[in-house]
């Protein structure tokens, strides 16, 4: 079980509540329309405090990654990806790519990925990603 779990702050609570509810929530600036991540109470592009929260599609592409062969003890003993995805809405975020072999052959840059939420405990659900084609029903 992962041990290094986040403690939400007032500025990020909506994001982590969204993950629990099965939504990847991003923020958009009302005046300048900039979509940004990680969460904060103002737009990092124009400093406006007039920002809104919306549910992202949860789709993106695999932007870059490594396969960690020396996992942190709480991450198990098998090599695993530590990846950055670029979301369709623009922002990038760190994650793990799961539900596929953790190999260079299976983890191809620019492949479509989609979010899958993994419950850690009552407070925290993490947004992980899987290859989009692995989503059977879509």
């Amino acid at each position, binding site marked *: 079980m*992962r041990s*290094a*779990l*986040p*403690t*939400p*702050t007032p500025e*990020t609570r909506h994001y982590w509540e969204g993950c629990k509810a099965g939504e990847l929530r991003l923020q958009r600036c009302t005046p300048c329309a900039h979509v940004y*991540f*990680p969460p904060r109470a103002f737009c990092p592009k124009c400093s406006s405090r007039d920002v809104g929260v919306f549910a992202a599609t949860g789709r993106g592409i695999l*932007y*870059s*990654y*490594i*396969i*960690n*062969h*020396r*996992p*942190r003890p709480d*991450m198990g003993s098998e*090599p*695993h990806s*530590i*990846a*950055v995805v670029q979301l369709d809405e623009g922002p*990038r*975020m*760190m*994650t*793990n790519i799961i539900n596929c072999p953790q190999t*260079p052959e299976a983890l191809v*840059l*620019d492949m479509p990925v989609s979010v899958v939420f993994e419950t850690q405990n009552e407070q*925290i659900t*993490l947004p992980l990603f899987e290859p989009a084609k692995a989503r059977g029903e879509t």
Partner: protein
Amino acid sequence: MKPHSIAVVGAAETTKLGKISDASVLGLHADAALNAMKDAGLTLADIDGVATAGISPVDLAYYLGISPTFADGTMVGGCSFMLLLRHAAAAINEGLCNMVLITHAESGRSQIDAGVFPRTPSSLAGQFQQPYGVYVAPTVFTIPALRYMKTYGATEEDLARVAVVQRQWASRNPRASFRDLVTVEDVLDSAMVAWPFRKLMCCLVTDGGGALILTSAARARDLPQKPVYVLGTGEAFESPLIDQMEDFTSSKAFHVSGRKAFEEAGIRHTDVDHLMVYDAFAHIPLYGLEDLGFVGRGEAKDFIREGHTAPGGKLPMNTNGGGLSYMHSGMYGMYALQESVRQMRGIAPAQIQGAKISVCHGVGGWFSAAGTIIFTNDARN
């Protein structure tokens, strides 16, 4: 700052490097400081400014017995020492102090009172990186490399070649941790750490330290060492989260810091005789060569393959063997500065004959910060 106004008059590393089981971090700072004072022919009473990263400059001053009127504890990771040098130069020029001691030390290997870099579960990294298995440098700093490789057609062999060339330099340096020559195959056959990075593409983990003493160029003329003048300086920053880097194939902090230093120095790239690019991992010198403007985007791999950074090449780079082969205690910037100073004094183990200008570029916090110092031994370059 004004070029040639400030000089390095003392420079030394700890007496030992590598595995040092008989000294704490603070003890290593002191060892480096005493060596640098001896090198400069100075006593405690001469030093009125202290600067260090990782420990408190107040702890350092107290421990050594200095009563400073200037202290700087800027801590932005491995390039902190480039920034401390830059700030010290400004402070001396502004009259805040006359003689600044900058120290670094870490017990990276032996972990004797080694520092910790806490990231609380509420910090940006704690919320948006740590949950995914991030911890030590190889799990983070390496992440942009695949995007760089895909964009520019760089291969795992190209990464390996960086380590191969630096080992060629290390083989000429008696103080280097690893001195046996290696081939591209040796590097690719070494243990996988974080694909595509093998062990020999990752820096060492060792114990050690270093110290520099800076003063005005005028004062430097009365001191025993050949002055090494500060010609240009730069510092710049990007995101503390690697996933938020603007461009995974280029470091904005490198580019901005380097441009500022070159502008300040008033030199062209063809004037540069010697280059240090902090190499925590094999991809960093590729970014460094490109972002500092020595080659075009995507050209660094060819430049290295053609031998231009190797012994005998037109742009000798990381001539001490670098973090990959010389030593790396955790914040390597100080050792890059030490090698630039040695080259400018003409006393480096792998000395570049006639070298007059050295560019020393550091990275900190896994692409989140950069510092660039340009040195010269020519009083009126």
